[in-house]
């Protein structure tokens, strides 16, 4: 392991990034009351630039990214992130513009945002889009607040319950709770879809919304979606589409046509923007026309008479702002660039190949693993290991062993409804050899589980650290470095 940057620090070392002060050097005590002045300097590292560069270069080499290798992390859509995206976001006309500079001087940025909104609306079958939410969960919150504003504006004040299936992402119920709603969880049926009888029993005059991912977290298309929409709409509720799995359906079907009223997009999944080790993402939200008045402000408008884009703050019914300024603009630039490259047909083809790759890999893997819910799958699928009772080898062991074979493991133990789940999403940008080699590794691991369980229990063997003690980390939290 690499020492902490603080442990490499030597008092007195530094870089010089600024020219000397060229205005009169007024004593700080004359400018500020002593009580406001810092008494003790923060213990930040003291290093030269080369030391900092080497430190973080070495840290980067302890990581695994999409550029390192295959990353079949289900629900995360770890597709290739085209390099031109990065260059586009770094153009000074995008990266060096102030959010409060005159609107006439940011027409390029606004045009890019307006076009991105239009493309996303078309892809999802929605009437309007906001780019303000910074991530998927942030989009979910925005969407639920929009739905609540809609009910409230109609004087329909009883609606306080949000229905989520048991296969949903954890962010769905957490979002509804953050928005002050109560949560009703409905079970799945034997095919992995929504249990319609349970849904019928759950809806009522207090139903605000149903939140659904389609395809579901099992990677299965919810074929009953029209009926589901009818049940929820008939009860007076609205339908929220969690767009985490949008990569499966672009150009094939649209949430708006399925009956959804609100949708969020994960630009850092479907639209190829990199995940940055945890963010920044971007979670635009699309809505049907009746929800448009409630969108977060400001809204981008095109003013025909003056032929320019404007930021409209006069939105009396708006839910308000969900963050400062206009969203993670730099991320939006990358997604826009990606959409320009692929075009409408290319996006459809991306979905087609994502589904092809997933079904091909599912076919290969189910020779040695079980498939609790039958396909065809869409962009991802969920498998489980065989004979865990006899072998004592569990999903975690398989995931750790995959690391030794040079892969990032799939998502594990999710969805919660599947015991020992391995959720695999290959994405469309992987070639056949990669899928074949991954399947061979999984086959070899299945054999190892039968023959040499210890090998798996002790995996990974080839990483700078072996399995880490998470219990100790939580029981005696050490959350920062401290000077000795």
């Amino acid at each position, binding site marked *: 392991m690499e020492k902490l940057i603080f442990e490499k620090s030597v008092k007195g070392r530094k870089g010089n990034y600024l020219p000397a002060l*060229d205005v009169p050097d007024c004593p700080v005590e004359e400018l500020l009351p002593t*009580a406001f002045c810092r008494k003790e300097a923060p213990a930040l590292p003291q290093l030269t630039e080369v030391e900092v560069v080497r430190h973080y270069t070495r840290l980067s080499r302890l990581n*695994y990214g999409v550029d390192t290798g295959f990353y079949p992390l289900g629900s995360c859509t770890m597709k290739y992130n085209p390099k031109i995206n990065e260059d586009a976001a770094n153009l000074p006309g995008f990266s060096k*513009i102030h959010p409060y500079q005159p609107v006439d001087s940011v027409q390029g940025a606004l045009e890019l945002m307006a076009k991105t909104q239009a493309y996303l609306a078309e892809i999802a079958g929605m009437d309007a889009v906001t780019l303000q939410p910074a991530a998927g969960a942030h989009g979910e919150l925005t969407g639920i607040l929009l739905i609540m504003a809609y009910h409230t504006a109609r004087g329909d004040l009883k609606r306080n319950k949000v229905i989520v299936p048991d296969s949903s992402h954890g962010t769905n119920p957490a979002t509804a709770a953050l*928005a002050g709603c109560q949560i009703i969880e409905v079970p799945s049926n034997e095919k992995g879809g929504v249990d319609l009888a349970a849904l019928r029993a759950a809806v009522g005059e207090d139903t605000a919304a149903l939140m659904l991912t389609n395809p579901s977290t099992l990677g299965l298309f919810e074929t009953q979606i029209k009926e589901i929409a009818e049940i929820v709409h008939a009860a007076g509720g609205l339908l929220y589409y969690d767009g985490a799995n949008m990569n499966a359906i672009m150009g094939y079907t649209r949430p708006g046509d399925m009956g959804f009223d609100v949708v969020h997009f994960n630009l850092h999944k479907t639209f190829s923007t990199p995940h940055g*080790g945890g963010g920044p993402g971007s979670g635009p939200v699309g809505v049907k026309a009746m929800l448009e008045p409630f969108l977060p402000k400001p809204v981008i408008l095109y003013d025909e008479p003056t032929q320019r884009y404007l930021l409209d703050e006069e939105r009396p019914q708006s839910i308000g702002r969900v963050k400062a300024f206009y969203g*993670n603009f730099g991320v939006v630039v990358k997604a826009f660039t990606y*959409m320009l*490259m692929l075009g409408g047909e290319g996006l459809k083809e991306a979905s087609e190949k994502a589904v092809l790759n997933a079904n091909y890999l599912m076919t290969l893997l189910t020779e040695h693993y079980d498939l609790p819910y039958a396909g065809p799958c869409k962009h991802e699928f969920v498998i489980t290991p065989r004979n865990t009772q006899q072998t004592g080898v569990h999903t975690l062991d398989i995931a750790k062993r995959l690391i030794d074979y040079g892969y990032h493991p799939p998502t594990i133990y999710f969805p919660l409804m599947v015991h020992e789940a391995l959720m695999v999403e290959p994405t469309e940008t992987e070639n056949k050899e990669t899928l074949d080699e991954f399947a061979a590794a999984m086959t070899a691991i299945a054999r190892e589980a039968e023959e040499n369980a210890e090998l798996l229990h002790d995996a990974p063997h080839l990483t700078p650290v072996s399995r880490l003690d998470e219990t100790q980390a939580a029981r005696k939290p050490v959350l920062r470095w401290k000077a000795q």
Partner: protein
Amino acid sequence: MSFLPHTREEENAMLQAIGVSSAEELFRDIPRELRLNRPLQLPAGLPEKAVWEEVQRLAEKDRHTDNYLCFRGAGAYEHYQPSAVKHLLSRADFYTAYTPYQPEISQGTLQAIFEYQTCICELTGMDVANASHYDGATALTEAAIMAVEATRRNKVAVSALVHPEYRETMQTYLKRRGVELITLPYADGLTASNDLSSYVNDEVAAVIIQSPNFFGSIEDIGLFAEFVHGKGGLLVACVDPLSLGVLESPGRLGADIVVGDGQSLGLPLSFGGPYLGFMACKEKYVRRLPGRIVGKTVDRSGREGFVLTLQAREQHIRREKAGSNICSNQALCALAATIYLSLLGPDGLAEAGKQCLQKSHFAQQRLAALPGVTIPYAAPFFQEFVVKTAEAPAVINQRLWEAGILGGLELRRFYPELENHLLVCVTEMRSREEIERLVQVWGGDR
């Protein structure tokens, strides 16, 4: 431009293995009436060169800080970004990785977050920090929710001089939860402190103060902390981390939760995002802190390493009982801030802060000497200050803009009572010559 690898032969072999005759067949579970039976109405795909020309065409429509002089801040600041920051961020092992769910192959991200948490604790004087939040506005909002949950009280008192967009964001989140926002009025460029007891009683979960505040003035955090603690509530401070090389840490002044936007630590303006929300608190609130937290532990051979920890707080475990819904955060921006702080070190950060302080005071003096310009507030400030003008601010700003200068923000945009007031920002980026140019054009001399 396409990123799809399969040749026709490969695709045929794959279809055969699956047992279907075409990829279309894999979509047979989508009911016919739900299928989109027309092409998506997006422009046709373009080769990379044509895409580059199109994004360049758009970018060139915008005026940017390479070709104008920026004297505007208001929550988004132009500071110097050392080249090494951008170069290290562009290492693909950092930026193409997901959240570090598999610690054995994510020690780079995990250690960097641990170092980031340490930097934020050092700057703010807090015990623990999370791995980041979306931006200053959302971090502040979640801090308010933390305070409400920790005290089981339902009112939050927020200074009118907290960034207006942060307050609007807080309002959006809190009104659905039935939390009442009380606005503390301002006087003389600072949050008024003479009549606090009419706003803050023992039903108030937290007093929220920004310092430097939206007008650039430095608030007496200690005074508000003492008052709210006397009522059993918490003090939430929203700060600019770049100022903390010069200004006292909010922890020392009595803050319980410290948040803010880390954009000033080496992140580009980028039209308002992606920025960096940071959140730090005292030890006793750690289990209410939302978002990812990295902790140090050992592996099976006793080697030190890092993991995501205290995950029982989070949505993927607790679902509707989680304190927040946050999942993706701003990890790469947190890395940028960590690299920035490591390059500058304590001396470099203090130097940057000192230059902001000195240059903004120099600019204030020069502007105050112009006829028709007055300084309405005497409060101490860091890098932004308010000026009142006899001439209409829009006219002054138009004159400046035509001369390639982005002038101060017209405050009536957020404070309708402040006609003819401008909020001017001067960071370490501006040279004496540039400040003098501002003063010259402002005064009517082009």
